């Protein structure tokens, strides 16, 4: 187990080199020279040269690549081009608003989807199953932007039940700001989640051990909760844990619609001002989070299923 974790941790290194390479190719090779863009039309050649020197763009390409790699290990991403702030400090400040929105919404939607998919699996093939499945597919077919626009307009603007936008970091206050975006998050997640969990549960339900459990006289609900759900845990864990890095990235669209100053908002602002270092930092950080959490998923397997031996 320990050797496995160490091996996987070591495998992170080439992956981080690869991620840095893709980001380096995109921003340092494919993208045009950012210096004239930052200085405006009237910049002199000398100013452009100085700025390029300052941003490290006059270095050889390999040295620029190593800068990206270094930032992935030291988390030192330098300063934002637009706000001149230290990037890691910006990210630290943005993390809290993002997490107050995404973590509760994520937990509620996950629990709700598992419960719903158990109900659907219980009534498989019947009216409830077909209705919920169709609603899930139909719900998924609507653009997320349309959901956000409509909910914000209807529930916040028209009915006035929620704040239209804004944020306060203190504990009870932030709830009124994250409530509506949180609800939209849940509505958006229910469709894909329920569909996935239902498939996973139904894959288990026709197994022999389920027949045995029924044969020894267990009720359908006990069978579902005690036997089927337990065995369906592996795909469910994978599906759930691998979403966590995206919580860290924040809900990009929701944060921007509701003016929540989180990581998603920071990323979009950086996008609008062509703030390369911030976007690079977010890409590197979210990739590292993804790699770490996929390792965590594998480790959790052994807890959910003792048969899985990690080598």
């Amino acid at each position: 187990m320990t050797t496995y974790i160490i091996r996987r941790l070591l495998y992170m290194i080439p992956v981080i080199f690869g991620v840095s390479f893709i980001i380096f190719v995109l921003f340092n090779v494919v993208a045009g020279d950012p210096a004239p863009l930052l200085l405006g039309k009237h910049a002199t050649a000398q100013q452009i040269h100085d700025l390029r020197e300052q941003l490290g763009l006059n270095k050889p390409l390999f040295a620029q690549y190593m800068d990206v790699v270094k930032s992935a290990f030291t988390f030192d991403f330098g300063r934002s081009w637009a706000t001149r702030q230290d990037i890691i400090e910006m990210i630290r400040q943005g993390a809290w608003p993002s997490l107050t929105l995404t973590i509760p919404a994520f937990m509620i939607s996950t629990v709700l989807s598992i419960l719903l998919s158990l109900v659907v699996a219980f009534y498989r093939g019947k009216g409830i199953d077909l209705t919920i499945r169709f609603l899930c597919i139909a719900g998924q077919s609507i653009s997320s932007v349309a959901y956000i626009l409509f909910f914000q307009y209807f529930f916040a603007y028209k009915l006035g039940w929620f704040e239209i936008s804004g944020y306060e970091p203190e504990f009870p206050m932030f709830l009124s700001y994250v409530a509506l975006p949180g609800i939209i998050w849940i509505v958006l997640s229910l469709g894909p989640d329920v569909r996935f969990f239902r498939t996973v549960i139904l894959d288990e339900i026709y197994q022999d051990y389920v027949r045995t459990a029924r044969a020894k006289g267990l009720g359908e609900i006990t069978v579902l909760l005690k036997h089927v759900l337990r065995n369906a845990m592996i795909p469910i864990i994978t599906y759930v844990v691998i979403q966590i890095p995206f919580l860290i990235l924040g809900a990009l669209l929701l944060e921007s619609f509701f003016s929540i100053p989180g990581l998603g908002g920071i990323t979009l602002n950086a996008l609008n001002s062509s703030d390369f270092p911030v976007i690079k930092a977010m890409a590197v950080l979210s990739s590292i989070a993804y790699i770490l959490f996929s390792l965590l998923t594998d480790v959790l397997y052994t807890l959910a299923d003792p048969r899985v031996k990690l080598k």
Partner: protein
Amino acid sequence: MSTQDTKSLWADAFSRLIRDRWALISLVIVIVYAGIAVLATIGWGLPDWKTSQASEYLPPSAQFWLGTDLFGRDVFAKVIHGTKIAMSVGLVTSLIAIPIGVFIGAIAGYFGGWIDDIISWFITTFSSIPNIMLLISITLIMGKGLVSVYLALGITGWVGLARLIRGEVMKHKEREYVHAASAIGGGHFRKLFIHILPNVTHLVIINTSLQFQTAIKSEVILSYLGLGVQGEPSWGTMIDDARQELARGVWWQLAGATFAMFLVVLAFNLLGDALRDSLDPKLKGK
């Protein structure tokens, strides 16, 4: 013998597909949308969206079924023309993503060893960067417009398919028919492309229907981010326009574009599920 069997497999799958009423309706919807997209491309027989025909923000009426926009243009005509962008985004990104996914996945699965190690590393690396970050980065760097939307969605779309194909080819390469092909002197190219790949085609078809709906939905998000299509009506830019319109009570542009998109994405969704059911050999006869 083999040609006969292959044919009957596809014919069988098709007959199972159209026996499913919902799948048939979905197929018809997709064909109608494709037809409209073709008409919009050759500019024939569709209502005019370019000229200002009335005053701004007229509500839906008998003359303008979905009202007019800020410039007094017919919203219904814009929705119809938006089909072209949506379907072309689906088509072009599929044409980019699917060959890449099939090729990379097939090579990794077939050859194994160090080739697989390198390709798996590449796939892991690529999928480690959240899709939305890649989309944003690529469109930001390539500049606004349709071409960068195509490229961004195409370049990000192949990873899932490559994984699937890799796994499936790995299973197939040890099957008897592949050994038989080696026995009669078939080379790697022949075994992989003539014998194995036709047996994983169902994954490609299912994935295409998935790629279409992902692309159509992502176009809206890119348009909201200001990275989308310029100078031509697209459902994404129409939904984005609604940000300014809703507070003034102008709901028809949002409703029209959302519904047009809903119908075709729903059709692709149902079609994808039905294709999976009818093409998956494991489910045959169930």
